[in-house]
């Protein structure tokens, strides 16, 4: 690519300004506000704020429902990320093998991705509805009385299934394009070297998909921790009492429903730290093992 030199050294910064402005207004400023208010006990009706030091953090971390939510978030995130990866990969490998009507398969599999989150959540809620939900009727055959919105783990399971279902197409698209970017001759050389297709997959195809997998893993974790908010909101709507929620949802609930702005700020700061640590771990540990072409 051609490299051009700007006449004025400040010009590039000027070009960056809009982007920087957006980051500052929508991320840096709110983050700073959150950090600040996490040290205060605030009157939700714009009254006085009292500096309370680390009390909000102490309260948040010692509350038993915080631990429970953190556990659920961990289990939820791991399951949603891993399941969407696994299912997406499985479908991509199958679609890659299909020769006739491949584009039809692709379109059908990607459909779900085009659905807006609230609609997907609504479909999910309907699938698990106590009265009309086909999945509830289905598991009832095996004597499992599924009660989404009442039973803690039944509700959790419904969240995991709906969230995974929503994320699978995304993984599928990336895995399929990853599979198709592996050179044919490498696949053929592997065919000459190794008879077992399963073995070829794990020793050649899967390692070559590692960059895609790594990328999707990060996106899936972010998705499961933050973007599933809408799905969770729809499923626990009006009965958040005993239902499992993720940490993000708890921040929202405690802050905007419970009016505990200081406490909810403290929780979001903790969440920020968790995300920061996760990102460092991911890049340090996993990226080393990932082969980039």
């Amino acid at each position, binding site marked *: 690519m051609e490299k051009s030199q700007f006449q004025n050294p400040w010009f590039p910064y000027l070009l960056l300004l809009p982007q920087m402005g957006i980051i500052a207004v929508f991320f840096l400023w709110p983050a700073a506000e959150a950090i600040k208010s996490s040290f205060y006990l605030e009157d939700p009706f714009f009254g006085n704020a009292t500096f309370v030091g680390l009390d909000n953090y102490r309260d948040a971390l010692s509350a038993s429902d915080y631990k429970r939510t953190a556990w659920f978030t961990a289990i939820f995130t791991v399951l949603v990320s891993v399941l969407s990866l696994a299912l997406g990969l499985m479908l991509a490998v199958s679609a890659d093998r299909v020769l006739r009507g491949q584009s039809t398969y692709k379109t059908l599999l990607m459909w779900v991705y085009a659905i807006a989150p609230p609609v997907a959540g609504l479909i999910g809620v309907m699938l698990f509805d106590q009265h009309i939900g086909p999945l509830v009727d289905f598991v009832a055959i095996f004597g499992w009385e599924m009660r989404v919105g009442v039973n803690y783990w039944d509700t959790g399971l419904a969240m995991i299934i709906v969230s995974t279902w929503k994320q699978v197409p995304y993984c599928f698209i990336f895995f399929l394009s990853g599979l198709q970017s592996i050179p044919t*001759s*490498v696949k*053929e*050389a592997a*065919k*000459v*070297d*190794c008879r077992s297709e399963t073995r070829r997959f794990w020793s050649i195809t899967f390692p070559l998909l*590692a960059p895609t997998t790594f990328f999707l893993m990060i996106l899936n974790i972010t998705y499961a921790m933050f973007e599933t908010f809408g799905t969770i909101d729809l499923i626990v709507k009006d009965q958040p009492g005993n239902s499992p929620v993720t940490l993000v949802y708890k921040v929202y609930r405690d802050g905007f429903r419970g009016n505990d702005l200081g406490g909810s700020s403290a929780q979001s700061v903790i969440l920020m730290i968790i995300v920061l640590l996760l990102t460092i771990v991911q890049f340090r540990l996993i990226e080393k093992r990932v082969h980039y072409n």
Partner: protein
Amino acid sequence: MTTLRIKNVKKVYPNGAEAVKGVSVDVEDGELVVFVGPSGCGKSTLLRMVAGLESVTEGEIELAGRVVNDLEPADRNIAMVFQNYALYPHMSVRKNLAYGLRNRKTPQNEIDARVNEAADLLQIAEFLDRKPSQLSGGQRQRVAMGRAIVRHPAIFLFDEPLSNLDAKLRNQMRLEIKKLQRRLETAAIYVTHDQVEAMTLADRIVVLNGGQIEQVGTPAEIYANPATTFVASFIGAPPMNMLEANVTGDALEIEGQSLPFPRSHRGPVRMGLRPERMQINGSDAGLNAEITVLEDLGATRLIHARLGNQEVVLSQDADLPVPSDGKISIAFRPDDVHLFDRDSGRRIDA
């Protein structure tokens, strides 16, 4: 003994396209056979059928005495070197070489021995722990060959292995492949579209065109006695001149000029003359022509000339003089004239 027998092999694709239209070739033990032809002639398809990467529509492929039509590539005891190397980018060179052996459950000490032997032979021992992305084109090519060698296959299959290299490296690797193949005494098929590679490497050349064999023979035979006009113009650089002429039994008539030419065949023919077998004659005894363009190639000079309504090319030593008025008389020995049938393009020996 014969390593490989290809018997009446045909390849028809589901859309009805016939890539290989019934080809039979044998490859003897230790022999290097080159499949050469223009793109789309079926040479690669044929090789891929031997490898098992392409199914055989009709006919039989027999490798080391056993029909392999329905065997998986990994079970065929072949080794293939691909055009773009096809190394496994996530594995070190050592693992690239060992991969096939490991999958065949070869004992580790045997794997190590074979990998080291191949690495010494190809002078890649110092790169064994590098990844392919850290190697140059030539080094990658060696690794690809190493991966073939360690398998101790019944036959090597080379699919245009040098076409990604620059001209200098290509000449060097060509020589190395030949030496290596002689030393290992393993049969090999080498596919190329480059007639120079075919001439220099082959024990025998198979010239393919349109899914069919045009001619099989040693490089010398094919050069000296091309069976068809296609072979005549495909093998040899610059290509053989093809001129419309008429033979009468004792004379050759071309563009209103006549030369004594004692051959029993009579009638209109296509006459082939290699540029390097023609000279500029001092007298007026040859065919009179007029120079159009001169091309200096350093050691040799190509002289393009107009002979009536037809074009001819002569190749001669660059030191030899060229008449300044551009008028030349072309001389050649009657034995160097190849006659072909105008309709079928087949050689006329009578």
